[in-house]
């Protein structure tokens, strides 16, 4: 039957083009293929990125001569010593304090939504809510910050609402608080704080939601079966199991707050956060060594934070 009958081997072979022969070289020496594929990226990121990081680190061991205004390239620790000056310590405390406060409050606010999404919402609702959390994440960072400038302005919606509800007094009292108050909401630590909480919120919601989703129903049922009332089950079973997700989310909020200079710049007053200090030092002050040394601080802080986070199981929750 059919032309398949007796076979003569197919003689038409694909031509021995250049690409084919290159391919054969890679077949015979797979290592070459590996190198060819990896080299561009290695060069790019290795040289450009890692190179600049090391350059930065090296610079932190130089120092700026106050008189000549030039950077002296000798190995010294005196720039790191400058970090211990009161004004710099203030900066660190301010920034880390803000990061901690933001993380704490984000966690509190994110939890109800994450919990609702994970355990109460129907299938369709959950997909919609998920999208609802992602959408702000996808919208431009700067634009969302700018929106708060509108919201917190003297003539903006918050003040309008306060006036409407007769809460002007409370608002004034808030703004008069030493340390965190300021001339208006949009130029105060309170403002900075609110914007930080707002902007990183999705980063906190998503890992908590993921962790809560993973709590098996059977565990909750077992707790109820053994006599635990809902409140007890929540405290002793669900919360501990969701905790790694909270820690994972906190990594983002903490780290992002530590390094940010735009939000404090737009909403804060004249006292600096780490990011702003770095920006100013490397810019107008020309003090690259100090800027580099300042940069090392958040990196180290995050390094330590990550170590603890790993212990608490956050890496499995991302």
């Amino acid at each position, binding site marked *: 039957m059919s032309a398949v009958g007796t076979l003569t081997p197919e003689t038409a072979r694909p031509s021995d083009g250049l690409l084919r022969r290159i391919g054969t070289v890679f077949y015979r020496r797979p290592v070459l293929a590996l190198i060819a594929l990896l080299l*561009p990226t290695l060069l790019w990121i290795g040289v450009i990125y890692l190179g600049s990081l090391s350059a930065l680190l090296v610079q932190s061991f130089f120092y700026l001569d106050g008189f000549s205004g030039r950077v002296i390239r000798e190995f010294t620790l005196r720039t790191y010593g400058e970090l211990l000056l009161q004004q710099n310590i203030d900066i660190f405390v301010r920034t880390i304090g803000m990061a901690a406060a933001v993380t704490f409050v984000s966690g509190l606010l994110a939890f109800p939504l994450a919990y609702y999404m994970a355990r109460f919402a129907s299938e369709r609702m959950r997909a919609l809510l998920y999208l609802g*959390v992602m959408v702000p994440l996808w919208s431009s960072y700067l634009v969302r910050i700018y929106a708060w400038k509108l919201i917190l302005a003297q003539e903006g919606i918050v003040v309008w609402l306060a006036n409407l509800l007769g809460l002007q007094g409370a608002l004034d009292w808030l703004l008069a608080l030493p340390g965190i108050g300021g001339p208006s909401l949009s130029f105060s630590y309170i403002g900075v704080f609110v914007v930080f909480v707002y902007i990183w919120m999705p980063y906190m919601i998503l890992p908590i939601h993921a962790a809560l989703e993973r709590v098996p129903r059977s565990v909750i049922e077992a707790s109820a079966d053994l006599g635990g009332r809902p409140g007890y089950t929540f405290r002793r079973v669900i919360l501990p199991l969701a905790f790694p997700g909270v820690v994972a989310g906190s990594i983002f909020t903490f780290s*992002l707050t530590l390094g940010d200079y735009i939000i404090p710049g737009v909403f804060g007053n004249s006292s600096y956060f780490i*990011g702003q200090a*770095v920006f100013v030092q490397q810019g107008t002050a020309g003090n*690259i060594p100090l800027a580099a040394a300042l940069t090392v601080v958040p990196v180290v802080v995050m390094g330590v934070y990550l170590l603890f986070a790993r212990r608490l199981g956050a890496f499995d929750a991302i």
Partner: protein
Amino acid sequence: MRSDNQAPRAFGLSLAAFAVLVFLHFPIWLIALYAFTTEEASFTFPPPGLTLEWFGVLFQRSDFWNALGLSLVVALLSTAIAVILGTSTALAIYRSRFFGRDAIALMIILPIALPGIVTGIALRSALNLSGLNFSFWTIVIGHATFCVVTVYNNVVARLRRTNYSQIEASMDLGASITQTFRHVILPNIATALLAGAMLSFALSFDEVIVTTFTAGQQQTLPIWVYSQLQRPRDRPVTNVAALFVIATTFIPILLAYRFTRARTE
């Protein structure tokens, strides 16, 4: 997974949950609202009237168009570079188990994992040392560096789910390595690659922190918006621009989301 509690408790929880959701979204709605306000110099709420005139004003501002154009070109170029670097790395790494593999994955993710200010200042001081002028190309270099990871992640994830014996089958049937790439590998990773590219585009288009460090006199759109933040007189125009930016970054990401979802279903 259905509700596991009684109604009253659920009500309190639902309220809290939706309050947070509204909190997340209302600033964006507000921007949309303010883009139409007739009020010229301040952010009066509620807006005294609604108008479209600011759209007209914005579209005549040449600095806005320049910034928009620059952002587009930078995003396109950075994405192109990120696609090449990300895809080639993904192809190299996804199967092999050589000793440097985790190190490379870490290296790729670092530009985006470290705070923007670290990346920014590192690149800036390196560029200073190298004597290069801050220009369009330095912006692109910065952006491409942290965009690689989005393409890499997407492509690697897809490659890992691809059946490897397909590739052997293709070679067995007479296709060389390049032909196999074209007919078998590429179709399999196409949507993931596209998703990664869209994410990279959006990332680059929206980026401001690293850009302020690596730009010279140029203004990308986010930098333009940032400078507008300091200029109260231009507020209404800035509102319209803000609305515009939201739409432009939102759409590619939505598409990327669609692309990766479609495959997993």
